[in-house]
């Protein structure tokens, strides 16, 4: 029997490589069919003989022929993927998952809150918003990183800060004397954000603890939990909701998510070991 998950692996060419930080890189993978994606979706990337890993798409949805993935090297598969260079071939399956509600956010204010590698699946949102800036109200991008050297997309963040129509705030958990910006957890930047909470969609991605505290600060700001969206990380294998690994409570993170309204998943995020 061939269950849903047995969609074959397609091989694609790596056409770009950027080192982001000491342990993170961005691969650009060509999609000749330009099938496109929604910000927040992910691919299963396969390294021949090593295995698959779920990697968020971190690129621009308006450029569907060049799919960017930012990969943090944390295990065997991600290490193997991080060793790929332009000209190499990689196995792909996807795109999978429910992405960020950029359509719902249109016409209103937007807050993007990113912690660490969580900025990767949110970068497509920022690029999309910039590409259609007139369709959105006040847009805030709040970024937290471990240290200045671990800040992703540093040059691009500088570009964002250079714009007059984006409110960009960056903080780091620790820094040496050469850093002149805020130091502290990313949640501390949320109270200062100027948005109309009733018209705001907030999109949050980062470690689960950080997302919970960020959601609490956003609620304090007046944003209701069904207008706060989080991207969950669980052990994704089949990406089709049949292997069972990615479940959190009743949800298959791979196909019911990975993006969820906070109101839907908050009860499960709050229970230990769920």
């Amino acid at each position: 029997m061939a269950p849903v998950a047995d969609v074959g692996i397609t091989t694609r060419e790596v056409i770009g490589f950027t080192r982001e930080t000491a342990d993170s890189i961005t691969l650009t993978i060509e999609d000749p069919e330009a099938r496109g994606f929604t910000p927040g979706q992910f691919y299963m990337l396969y390294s021949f003989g090593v295995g698959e890993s779920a990697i968020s798409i971190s690129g621009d949805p308006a450029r569907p022929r060049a799919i960017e993935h930012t990969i943090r090297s944390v295990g065997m598969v991600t290490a193997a993927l991080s060793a790929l260079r332009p000209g190499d071939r990689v196995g792909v399956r996807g795109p999978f998952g429910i992405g960020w509600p950029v359509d719902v956010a249109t016409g209103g204010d937007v807050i993007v809150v990113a912690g660490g590698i969580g900025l990767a699946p949110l970068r497509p949102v920022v690029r999309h918003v910039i590409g259609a800036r007139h369709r959105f109200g006040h847009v805030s991008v709040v970024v937290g990183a471990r240290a200045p050297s671990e800040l992703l997309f540093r040059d691009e963040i500088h570009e964002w800060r250079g714009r007059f129509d984006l409110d960009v705030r960056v903080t780091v958990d620790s820094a040496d004397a050469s850093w002149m910006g805020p130091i502290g957890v990313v949640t501390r930047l949320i109270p200062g954000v100027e948005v109309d909470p009733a018209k705001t969609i907030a999109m949050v991605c980062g470690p689960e603890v950080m997302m919970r505290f960020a959601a609490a600060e956003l609620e304090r700001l007046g944003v209701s939990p069904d207008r706060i969206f989080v991207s969950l990380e669980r052990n994704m294998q089949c990406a089709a909701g049949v292997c069972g690994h990615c479940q959190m409570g009743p949800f298959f993170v791979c196909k019911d998510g990975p993006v969820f309204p906070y109101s839907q998943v908050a009860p499960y995020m709050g229970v230990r070991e769920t």
Partner: protein
Amino acid sequence: MVDALLADGRTVVAPTLRDGAVTLDEISSAAEVAIGWRAETAPGRYRLVADRDGSIFGASVGPTSTKRWRSPPETIAWTGRREPGGFSGGVPTQSPPRMAFIGLRGCDLAARVLYDRAVGAAPSEDFIVGVECTEPGSTCFCVSMGTGPGISEGADLVVTEILEPSHLLVTRACTPRGADMLEVLGGRPPSAAEEDAAWSQVAAAARGMSNGIDPDAAAAALRLPSPQGWEDVAARCLACGNCTMVCPTCFCTTTVDHTTPDASQASRVRLWDSCFSLAFSEVHGGPARASTASRYRQWISHKLSWWWDQFGASGCVGCGRCIVWCPVGIDIRAEASAAIERVGAHV
């Protein structure tokens, strides 16, 4: 009938005697069907007892269910080889054998449907001979889960074995090809007394069955399970995963990667997996469910509550396999009741 099914080119699975149990397995002749056994079951206990009446279907379900053939414990999901400039590969072409299953109980038939729904499988054309139980085990609770012992759908033929007034297999056809098979087999229409005996024995089986689980109360109680209250079962549970292996609706799998020593060829192999394994819920930093308590809670909450959200039905069919084949005799009926009570106590 076995001969007819084999002649039709089907792989025939029927209750056979294997490793001290009457369990479903492939047979090549009718002689391999286990005859004359009853099963004594209790939490963590299964014992065969010789049955002087020579009943064919006197033993309640064995550890194996149809999922073993629907989705074998080990399958090759993908194979590939390196090539200049990259690699190529594909999904091996699958030609699953045409099956015939003899001896599926009401719980088994319900489980087949649920399992297919969970894995997104297309309906099969397997030939099904269902059996209505007249002697439930003490660990059976299909009545409370609404899956038996009577059978109304899901089979081509339904058999009720009676010993009085004489040893007969009262059989009815539920599909056109079931009717065709009955014609091939011959036999005679049952008398009123024989039909009555069949009906009343199944009814008696239903009445004699244990209380089981309240499916709606369990689903509500386990919807958002508390981290408290699982210490008792966690102290007993070995996290061995036996329950998930014998459960006919547990569908979780994992995929492992193999390569040849020279790394020129690779394959991806899909294996049955269990949410009880520590690596199952691995996220960055370690398993999301590290404690045994959280893993037991995950299994029972999924089975009795979240299945409803995912597939519109309870994942439990009341077959009792998890109770029998738990090495320490954990009883899902008792754990469900305890969970319901804990929630009730808080309210």
